[in-house]
């Protein structure tokens, strides 16, 4: 190679090729969305798409800036997140408690499980008309619906997680002198945690879904209200913006759930043997 008098063509430079390859690998997944958005913008500029049907990306961005500046966006996001958070907290606590109680006491399982399994089959959104009659379109209605949706996934996964803790580990822990409290802390809860976190992730999805529907149909504030209000004024840009924000918030919740799993389940094999 060193004796080769000819200049090397730039494409076989090994170092540069590697960097380029890495860069390309990071970039490739984003290629299609970028092309689509650019094409969408061009189509809108050329007048191929009626802006009343679908706004251009730039217009959606303008709507974003506008609503950000007048404070409407942040206010509505705050309202929606507060509802989601409160509903999740209440529903999660109820589900967790029910799961712990039924998994621990045989009697409570016999008493409650059949009922819970029956109630669980009702889609929480089916309650919407009834909930509006009960609570009107205020905060309680939304929170109540989210609680209904979040409780059962957490209940089922907590119950299942605790029941599937290896009994051998429990008898080992008894031999090694763990009292009831220590047994829960060191053996049962950590053993049930993977399953509980599956429930958390699932119910986060239910939480957003419920919130979107409930806010769109019956609300006087929040993101869904913003969207349905925009519909009446034919502001498609605001509607698309709302959809994007829901997507972003959903993704955010998922990232948090994943981070929790990484933090608490790091003992698990990343790749099975």
């Amino acid at each position, binding site marked *: 190679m060193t004796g080769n008098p000819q200049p090397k063509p730039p494409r076989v430079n090994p170092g540069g090729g590697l960097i380029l390859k890495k860069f390309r690998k990071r970039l490739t997944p984003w290629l299609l969305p970028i092309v689509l958005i650019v094409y969408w913008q061009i189509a809108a500029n050329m007048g191929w798409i009626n802006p009343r049907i679908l706004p251009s990306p730039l217009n959606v961005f303008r709507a974003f800036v506008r609503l950000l500046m007048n404070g409407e966006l942040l206010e509505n996001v705050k309202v929606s997140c507060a509802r989601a958070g409160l509903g999740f907290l209440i529903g999660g606590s109820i589900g967790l408690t029910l799961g712990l109680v039924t998994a621990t006491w045989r009697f409570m399982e016999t008493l409650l499980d059949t009922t819970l399994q029956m109630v669980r089959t009702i889609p929480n959104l089916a309650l919407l008309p009834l909930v509006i009659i009960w609570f009107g379109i205020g905060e309680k209605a939304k929170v109540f619906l989210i609680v209904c949706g979040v409780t059962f996934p957490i209940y089922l996964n907590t119950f299942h997680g605790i029941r599937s803790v290896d009994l*051998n*580990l429990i*008898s*080992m*822990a*008894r*031999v*090694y*002198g*763990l009292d009831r409290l*220590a047994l829960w802390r*060191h*053996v049962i809860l*950590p*053993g049930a*945690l993977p399953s509980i976190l599956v429930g958390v992730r699932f119910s986060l999805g239910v939480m957003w879904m419920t919130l979107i529907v409930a806010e769109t149909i019956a609300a006087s504030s929040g993101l869904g209200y913003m969207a349905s209000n925009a519909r009446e004024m034919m502001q498609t840009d605001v509607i698309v913006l709302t959809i994007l924000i829901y997507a972003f918030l959903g993704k955010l919740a998922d990232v948090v759930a994943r981070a929790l799993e990484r933090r608490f389940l*790091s*003992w*698990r*094999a990343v790749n099975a043997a």
Partner: protein
Amino acid sequence: MEYDIKGPGGGAGVRTEGLSKAYGQTSVLNGLSFELKAGEFTAVVGRSGCGKTTLLRLLGCLEAPDEGSVSVDGEPRSDLNPDTRIMFQEDRLLPWKTVLENVGLGLAGDWRRVAMTALGDVGLGLRQGDWPRTLSGGQRQRVALARALAHSPKLLLLDEPMGALDALTRIGMQALVERVWASRGFTALLVTHDVAEAITLADRVILLENGRISQDLKISLPRPRQRDMDFAKLESEVLNWILSLYAGYI
């Protein structure tokens, strides 16, 4: 729960009186009476399903006998006691705790130091921060042994702890068990399927048959034991017991 690093923690004398246990219709143990001298190493052999694990569960008070009693150092015993530890057929490590936390399970006070000493005794001090899943099967059993040792038991019940290990690892583990037993002086009861293992480690080999002890053999070979003529003679004697168990089938 003090950990005695200076010398032998001593062993407990064990005595059972007419132990019986049945699961439903099947009687497993049937009026079993025997004595383990303090500091003695006893091996139990018997065919699969003859009740060896059940015997250990009764001695460790994980379960109550239908009839009969267990007494340790002269005191009747019916509850779990910190001076008795069991090493199970599987390692039973908690996968969500590090090696050191597993060894320190159930210890009070300065558990890290105690656990570290026990982990050092089984030669795994450097793996203290690792997850159990990253260890080999033999290393996991050594961690389980360290966990038992950390409590300075006076009675250690070993339920085929080496059953799942390969032949070479098993020999190393046997040497380790013999070394810690000799230095700590606890009373040991080892269930095993391996006749050579029983004769390598035990002062006494007993055969469990039909819920009773049907053979009881003293092994007085000098330690550490060589596989010489005397060893072979004892080994064939125990093998003959076992063959006779299956005589009806052959």
